[in-house]
């Protein structure tokens, strides 16, 4: 097997670890970081495919990074403003929208 296939397996594994992390942790910042990991796992997949399907795939990696940056900025701002209110980052306690 070549490096591309191994890279895809690595990507799948990182993505799965990211999903498991989102499910396991209560700390909203760490859940957020898990999502970043999943995004980067996708980036790896895109880079692998750029070798065969054309270099344009790397442009999408670039967009993913840009969107991730924006998401991180807004998401962290939301976390800060929630933290100001509750003094905690436990996602289970953010339940105002429940029912």
């Amino acid at each position: 097997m070549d490096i591309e296939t191994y890279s895809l397996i690595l990507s799948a594994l990182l993505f799965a670890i990211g999903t498991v992390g989102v499910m396991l942790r209560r700390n909203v910042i760490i859940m957020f970081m898990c999502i970043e990991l999943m995004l980067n796992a996708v980036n790896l997949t895109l880079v692998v495919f750029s070798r065969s399907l054309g270099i344009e795939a790397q442009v999408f990696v670039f967009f993913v990074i840009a969107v991730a940056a924006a998401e991180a900025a807004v998401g962290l701002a939301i976390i800060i403003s929630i933290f100001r209110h509750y003094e905690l980052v436990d996602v289970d306690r953010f339940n105002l929208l429940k029912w």
Partner: protein
Amino acid sequence: MIVDFFFVLFAVMAIGGAAGMVLARNPVASVMYLVMAFFALSGVFVLLDAHFIAAVNLIVYAGAILVLFLFVIMLLNLGRTEKTDLRGPLYRMLAIVSGGAFFGLLLVMLRGGHVTSMAGGMGQETMDAMLRARGAVGVVADPMFRSYLVPFEITALLLLVAVVGAIVLARQKAP
């Protein structure tokens, strides 16, 4: 041979970093594990001849976004770790089972062949020739500023909105 060696090294680092991030009790440690995973991923990018992406990944992800995370953790003073925020055994089991099933299905998909067949096409020679001809930045810049100029500009707008939104959200309200 040397490529295989580095790939194994980076893969182990990435998986270890990811697992450490998920399992570390201290959020600061989590960030550090993630930084390690991203460094390793950048290494994999280099092995896959995506030099520019590797650099951007390091600078933007590891350098900027993760520093932002670290910054927020310290701002909110979440560094102390009296008890873990991992969920209970039922959730752990459910999470590992569903995550494992997910990974297993992705492997099944890879083994099916049509994904890997797409992966192998272009060949090392073509890639090398392209890099030699245009340079690491040039190969990405060409489609980005020709075919994808408008999405690129929209990305800029997105970042602007995100910046404004972040300021509005995080601003201390006047008492």
